[in-house]
């Protein structure tokens, strides 16, 4: 009996710990005062100034642009990579998969500086292009890892069978293999997209002046202290995430039934 209450209390405390900071940000995003120590009345001003903030709006644009391009490229390369890997000799496959896991295991900061070193050596100006290249690099391994298992679940003779029946390799890929691996591709693309949207460290080292994503914008604003616009931004982002996850949760439940 005591144990049950203790469990409830613990759960409440943990969720309190997780959500208190987010709640504080949400409350103070409506505070008509720059200070977070006192309440100066209710206002929507910070939301207004958020949407008039050039830096944040431009960063939002770059974040989404980079995420779309990087996830599209990495999904394309990663899917065909999984296809190639599946038919590869075991040893070669193993070696490549080990290299594949390097960006996953390595600390972000090491991946970030190593790519920056490469771009500087190649004399590529740091900016939008380098940021996209860097994002594609850390997204591909996750796409490969989510598509490859789908190949392994597929009966191994399917490609041969289709080609024996007269399909060209490309036709066989589209009509026979693609439907089998489609769930893996979708998962991979979603992982790539979220990783790209959320990335800070690697982008931080591989971007140039004038190009920043939301994380970089938040970082540079937060370093200069508390900005109520960030409170408004995080409240909006939290609501977006919550709605997306609720929809996703509902959808998977329906699929399970």
């Amino acid at each position, binding site marked *: 009996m005591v144990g049950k209450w203790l469990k409830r209390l613990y759960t409440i405390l943990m969720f309190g710990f997780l959500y208190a900071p987010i709640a504080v940000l949400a409350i103070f995003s409506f505070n008509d005062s720059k200070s977070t120590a006192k309440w100066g009345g209710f206002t929507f001003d910070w939301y207004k100034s958020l949407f008039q903030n050039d830096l944040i709006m431009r960063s939002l644009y770059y974040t989404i642009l980079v995420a779309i391009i990087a996830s599209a490229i990495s999904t394309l390369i990663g899917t065909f990579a999984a296809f190639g*890997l599946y038919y590869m000799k075991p040893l070669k496959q193993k070696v490549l998969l080990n290299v594949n896991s390097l960006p996953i*295991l390595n600390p972000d*900061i090491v991946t970030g500086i190593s790519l920056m070193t490469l771009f500087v050596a190649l004399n590529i100006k740091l900016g939008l292009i380098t940021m996209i*290249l860097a994002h594609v690099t850390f997204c591909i391994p996750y796409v490969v890892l989510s598509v490859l298992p789908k190949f392994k679940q597929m009966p191994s003779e399917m490609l041969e069978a289709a080609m024996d029946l007269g399909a060209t390799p490309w036709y066989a890929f589209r009509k026979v293999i693609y439907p089998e691996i489609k769930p893996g591709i979708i998962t991979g693309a979603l992982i790539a997209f979220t990783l790209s949207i959320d990335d800070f460290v690697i982008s931080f080292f591989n971007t140039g002046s004038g190009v920043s994503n939301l994380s970089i914008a938040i970082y540079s604003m*937060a370093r200069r202290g508390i900005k109520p616009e960030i409170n408004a931004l995080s409240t909006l982002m939290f609501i977006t995430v919550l709605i997306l*996850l609720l929809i996703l949760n509902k959808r998977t439940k329906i699929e399970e039934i």
Partner: protein
Amino acid sequence: MIKRLASGPYLFWLIMFIIVPLLMVFGYSIVQTDSSGNLSVSFSNFARAFDPIYITVLGRSLKIALEATAICLLMGYPMAMILAKMNVKYRTFAVMMFVVPMWMNFLLRTYAWMTILGKNGVLNGILSFFGLPQVQFLYSEGAVLLGMVYNFLPFMVLPIYTVLMKMDSSLIEAAEDLGGNKVTVFSKVILPLSIPGVLSGVSMVFMPAVSTFVISNLLYGGQYMLIGNLIEQQYLVVNDWNFGSAVAMILMALILISMAVMNKVGGDNPEDRGTGLW
């Protein structure tokens, strides 16, 4: 033929953007430019990393990352157990609510603590409401530790939760039938079986904690140097890429070695490692 073509771009990408950059960093770390601009191979960058100042940095990073990992484990294990035993009706929802903050931008989660701990922050507001003196919470080692625990706690809870969920409940029932009390059942059955999840949680907390430079920068300020800050500064402020690369190599070796040790301790059954984040 087409099978080979398919992985062509991937091979190019792996070599060009993963292997070559790492080799370049390695190259930078073992090269030194002398005053007349001549390049020479030397290990002086590594030797410099073992200077007392930098050993302190390394030690501090390890210490605070280990502390964060230990606190996450102590706080997270009971939570994972509670979640795993929860009624199915609420469980999915509870787990989802546990994951939601993790999906928020990492910078925002860290920034949130700045508003709470700051000089004019919420905590000090509460203190002054009760007429108590102001306390400097922000820009302390404790603030950095708190930021780490807050950011990485879900990484500890989820793998342990996954392992606990997959655990064969008949084993626990058997232990109970054979007369084991709660403590024995936990220490002899549940805990040993959940070790793979614990290990995976430990590495998922320790790795980002030991290499972060964002949390320490925001919650401590400029002077608090963790390995991550040191690398960032050498690359972006001091512009000593050779020394920065040497430190990055040390960090990389540290992480890869600890991963290898973890794998060894955890046995070779990667299927059981609770990587069910996705």
